[in-house]
C-alpha cells in the first residue's frame, strides 16, 4: 500500500507527461502481482469498491478525537480525505509490524458488507501509514484525481513492454484486474493474451496535418476528400450481441450515449464521428457540449440533444475484416451497409468532389456547416492502418480565428519552465466607452518561441502589480499593457466564465508590442463569432 500511496503522491504533483510515464513504468516494473494490477485498475477506473460517504468518514474520525481540534484541522487543510489521513490517531499499543498491501486492502474493502464497511475501513486506517491512509480513503471515496488518464496508463504499459500502445488498447476490453496475464506478456514471460472477448476495440487510423508544400507533391486524383466534422471520433463495434461504443483511445463511452448504443443492432465495426442533432439537421459544437463529459445522461437531454454517428469507414462487416482492403473498396462496402441501419442514428459522411487543390482550398475556407473544421484527404488505395502513418490520410483545417487580447495574469510554469512566467490569462475590453474593463477570455501557455518567452517573462516581472502564490497580475489598463494576438479554433458559450465565452485550443500567435492596449479587441467581436 505504501508504494501505491507514494506513486499517487508523486503523480499528482508531477505535471510533465514524460515524468508521469517514468513514475508509472517504474512502479509497474518494481511492484509484484497482484498489487500492480490493482493499482492499474484503480487508475483506469476499473476497480470496483463500495463507496464510503464523506459524512461517514467524518463520523469515524470524530469518534476518535476532539471535534474542536478536528474542526481547526479541517479548516486549515480544506480537503476531508487529506485531513482525516493526517489526524487519524494511532491506536494505543505497538504499531502494527505489517503494513497492509494494496491487495489486502482491496480484498477487505470488497468483502465488507454495507453495515460493517465503516468498521473495516477504520481498522485499515489504524494499520496504515499517513500516506497509505490517504490512498485508502481515495479508493473508498471514489476518484483518485491524480491527473492520469486511462490512456496514459496504457502508454506506460506499452513503454514497460516495448510494444505499441495500440496493442494494449486492442486487448484492453478483454482483460480484467489484476491483469496478471498482461504483465507476464509485457515482461516477456508469457504469450500475448488471446483476444477472446467479443466487440474489442480496433486501434484507429490517424491523419497528419497538411504541411507547407505537401500538396504540391500529391496528385489530387489519388485522394478522396470529406468534410472534417468537429465531433468526437468514435468506433461502434457490435459482435455476437455485445455492443460497444469506443472513443478514439479505446475507452468505452457507451454509458454516456445510451441512445446511440441502443440503435447499434448490427454486426460490424464502424469508424465515424459522433455528432448531435440528426443527420438532416446537424447540431453545433455547443449542442454537442451538452453531451460531453457526462457519466450518465437524463432522458430529457437525450431527447433534446440526440446523438448520431456520421460514418466514414468500415473496419469489419459480419465476419469479414476489411482493414486490409483499399479505402475505395471499404467505402463501397460502407455505402451499401449504411442503408441497413437506423437512418436517424447513422448516416454516411459525404465525399467532397474537387478537380484540384485550389478548388478544394476554396471549399475548405467556406464550409457549409459551422461544425465543419476543414477537410480530410484519404488516399483511395490505402488500407486501414493503425497509428499515424505519413501519406495516406491528411487533415486540412480551416484557418484559426484570431483576436487581439491584453495580458492580465501570468503563472509560473513547471519543469523546464519553472523559473518562467509561461501561462498567460488574457482579456478583451468590455463595458461602455470611457469605463472599459478587461474581462478574461482565455488562458494559453504555448505558441511562442523560447526567445518570446524570455521577453514576456521579463515584461511580467517588470510590470507586476500583485502576486498570488505562483501567479502575478500585470499592469493592464487603457494606457499600458501587452497585447497578444491569440489564435483559437472556435468559441463556446460558457456559464462558468464571466465573459460568457470559452475558447477552444487557444495559443499565442504573435506578440503585438507595437499595439496600444486600448486598441485590443472588444468582447462584442467574440460574441459575434458565437452567433454566427
Amino acid at each position, binding site marked *: 500500500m505504501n508504494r501505491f500511496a*507514494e506513486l499517487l*503522491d*508523486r503523480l*499528482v*504533483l*508531477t*505535471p510533465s507527461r514524460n*515524468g508521469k510515464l*517514468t*513514475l508509472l513504468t*517504474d512502479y509497474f516494473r518494481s511492484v509484484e502481482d497482484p498489487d500492480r494490477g490493482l493499482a492499474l485498475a484503480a487508475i483506469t477506473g476499473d476497480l470496483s469498491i463500495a463507496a464510503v460517504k464523506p459524512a461517514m468518514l467524518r463520523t469515524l474520525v470524530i469518534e476518535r*478525537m*476532539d471535534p*474542536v*481540534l*478536528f474542526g*481547526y*484541522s479541517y479548516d*486549515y*487543510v*480544506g*480537503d476531508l480525505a*487529506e*485531513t482525516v489521513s*493526517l*489526524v487519524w490517531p494511532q491506536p494505543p499499543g505497538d504499531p502494527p509490524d505489517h503494513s497492509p498491501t494494496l491487495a489486502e486492502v482491496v480484498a477487505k474493502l470488497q468483502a465488507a458488507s454495507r453495515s460493517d464497511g465503516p468498521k473495516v475501513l477504520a481498522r485499515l486506517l489504524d494499520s496504515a501509514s*499517513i500516506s497509505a491512509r490517504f490512498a485508502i480513503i481515495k479508493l473508498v471515496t471514489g476518484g483518485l484525481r491524480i491527473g492520469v488518464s486511462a490512456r496514459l496508463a496504457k502508454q506506460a504499459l506499452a513503454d514497460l513492454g516495448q510494444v505499441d500502445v495500440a496493442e494494449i488498447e486492442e486487448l484492453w476490453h478483454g482483460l480484467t484486474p489484476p491483469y496478471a496475464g498482461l504483465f507476464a506478456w509485457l515482461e516477456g514471460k508469457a504469450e500475448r493474451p488471446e483476444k477472446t472477448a467479443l466487440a474489442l476495440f480496433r486501434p484507429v487510423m490517424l491523419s497528419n496535418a497538411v504541411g507547407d508544400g505537401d500538396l504540391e507533391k500529391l496528385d489530387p486524383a489519388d485522394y478522396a476528400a470529406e468534410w472534417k466534422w468537429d465531433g468526437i471520433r468514435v468506433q461502434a463495434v457490435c459482435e455476437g450481441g455485445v455492443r460497444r461504443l469506443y472513443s478514439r483511445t479505446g475507452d468505452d463511452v457507451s454509458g454516456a450515449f445510451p441512445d446511440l448504443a441502443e440503435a447499434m443492432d448490427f454486426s460490424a465495426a464502424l469508424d465515424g464521428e459522433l455528432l448531435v442533432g440528426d443527420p438532416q439537421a446537424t447540431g453545433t459544437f455547443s449542442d454537442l457540449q451538452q453531451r460531453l463529459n457526462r457519466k450518465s445522461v437524463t432522458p430529457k437531454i437525450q431527447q433534446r440533444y440526440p446523438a448520431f454517428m456520421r460514418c466514414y469507414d468500415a473496419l469489419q462487416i459480419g465476419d469479414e475484416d476489411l482493414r486490409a482492403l483499399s479505402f475505395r473498396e471499404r467505402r463501397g462496402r460502407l455505402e451499401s451497409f449504411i442503408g441497413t441501419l437506423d437512418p436517424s442514428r447513422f448516416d454516411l459522411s459525404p465525399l467532397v468532389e474537387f478537380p484540384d487543390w485550389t478548388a478544394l482550398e476554396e471549399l475548405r475556407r467556406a464550409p457549409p456547416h459551422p461544425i465543419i473544421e476543414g477537410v480530410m484527404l484519404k488516399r483511395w488505395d490505402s488500407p486501414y492502418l493503425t497509428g499515424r502513418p505519413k501519406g495516406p490520410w491528411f487533415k486540412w483545417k480551416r484557418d484559426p480565428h484570431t483576436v487581439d487580447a491584453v495580458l492580465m495574469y501570468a503563472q*509560473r510554469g*513547471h*519543469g*523546464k519552465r*519553472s*523559473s*518562467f512566467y509561461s501561462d498567460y490569462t488574457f482579456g478583451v475590453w468590455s463595458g461602455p466607452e470611457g469605463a472599459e474593463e478587461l474581462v478574461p477570455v482565455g488562458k494559453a501557455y504555448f505558441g511562442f518561441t523560447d526567445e518570446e518567452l524570455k521577453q514576456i517573462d521579463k515584461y511580467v516581472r517588470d510590470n507586476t502589480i500583485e502576486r498570488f*502564490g*505562483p501567479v502575478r497580475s500585470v499592469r493592464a489598463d487603457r494606457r499600458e499593457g501587452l497585447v497578444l494576438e491569440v489564435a483559437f479554433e472556435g468559441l463556446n458559450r460558457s456559464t462558468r466564465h464571466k465573459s460568457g465565452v470559452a475558447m477552444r485550443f487557444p495559443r499565442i500567435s504573435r506578440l503585438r508590442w507595437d499595439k496600444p492596449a486600448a486598441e485590443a479587441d472588444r468582447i462584442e467581436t467574440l460574441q459575434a463569432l458565437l452567433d454566427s
Partner: protein
Amino acid sequence: MYAGVSSLLQQASRGGISNYLGKMRASDLLHPRPEGLYCPPGDFFIDPVRPVNRALITHGHSDHARSGHRAVLATRQTLDIMGLRYGEGFAGTTQAAALGETIALNGVTVTFHPAGHVLGSAQIAVEHQGRRIVASGDYKRQKDATCESFEPVKCDVFITEATFGLPVFRHPPDSEEIARLLKSAAQFPERSHLVGAYALGKAQRVMRLLRDAGFDRPIYIHGALAKLSDYYQNQGIDLGRLEPATVESGGKDDFTGAIVIGPPSAFADRWARRFPDPISCFASGWMRIRQRAKQGGVELPLIISDHSDWDELTATIKETGAEEIWVTHGREEALVRWCELEGIAARPLHLVGYEDEGD
C-alpha cells in the same frame, strides 16, 4: 473584607495559585511589549524585533536575531552567525553564553539550554524569586546531526512556539524523506533536483542527511548558502564536498543528475534557468499539506522541518511539567485547546514581528 477576598482570588486566578503563596507573578517576570518579550526586573528583552539596550537571542534566524542592539547575550554560535549575516558591528557589545552556565542580570538568573532548532539555538530559562519561565524560541525534538538536541527544562511557565500547532502536522523521519529524494534522483538521472531549503539550518541539515544516506557526489549550492555552510564545516559538522552552482563552471550538462540546494526564493528566479529540466523540491514541514506543495509548484515535497510537529509539541509541554503554557507564533488556538483538554492552563502570547511561516 469582602472586597479584599475577591481581589485576592482574582490575583490567584490570573497568575496561578502559587503567587498567593509568595512567588512573583509570571507576567511580572516576562511580558510582551512592542519591542518583544520583556523582563522588567532584569531589564532585558528576549528576541526583540526592534533595537533595544539589552537583548537575549535564542537563535540566528533573522526574525529572532536582528542587528542594532546595544548589548547582545547569546550562544557563541548564534553570535558568530549574526556576525556572518550582519557584519561584525551588528551590536554594541556581545557576550557569549555557555550552555548550562548561570548568568545573573540585575538579580535575575538566566540559563541557556539547547533547543535542537539550528546550530547554536537555545532556550532561555529566566528565574527570579523562585519562579522559572522557559522561553524556548523555536525548537524540535527530531534528532539532527547539525545541532545539539533539545533538552527539556523543568519550569513553572513554558513558552512554546506553535508553527506546526495543529494535529495535521506530523513530520515523518527525515531519513525517509531523503531516501525519497535519492530515489527520485535515480529515477530521473537526466534531470537535476533543486532543493529549496532555508539558508541557515535547513540547508546544512539536508546536506548532512544526504551524506548520512551515502550520497558522496558534490552538492551544488546557491551563493547565499556559502558562508553559513562554511561556518558549519568549521564547527566540525562535515557536509562533504560543496560546489558553487555557477554557470561559469560550465553549461547545462554539468548539472545533469545533480542535487542543487538553494534558498526557496531562488528557484522561482531567473537563477534557476541554468539547470536542465529541474525537478523542484522543497524541504519544509509545510510540505505535509499537498495543496501547499501544489501552489508552490513543488514536484517533490520533502517533509523536513526544524520545528516541532504536533506530537513533539504536546509531548514537550508534558515533559516540562509547567503548570502554565504561553503559546506564541503560529496556530495558537489548537494548542491552547489541547492544553485545556489536558487540564493545563494556557493562553496565547501575542508577540509581533515573527514569521510563523518560515521553515
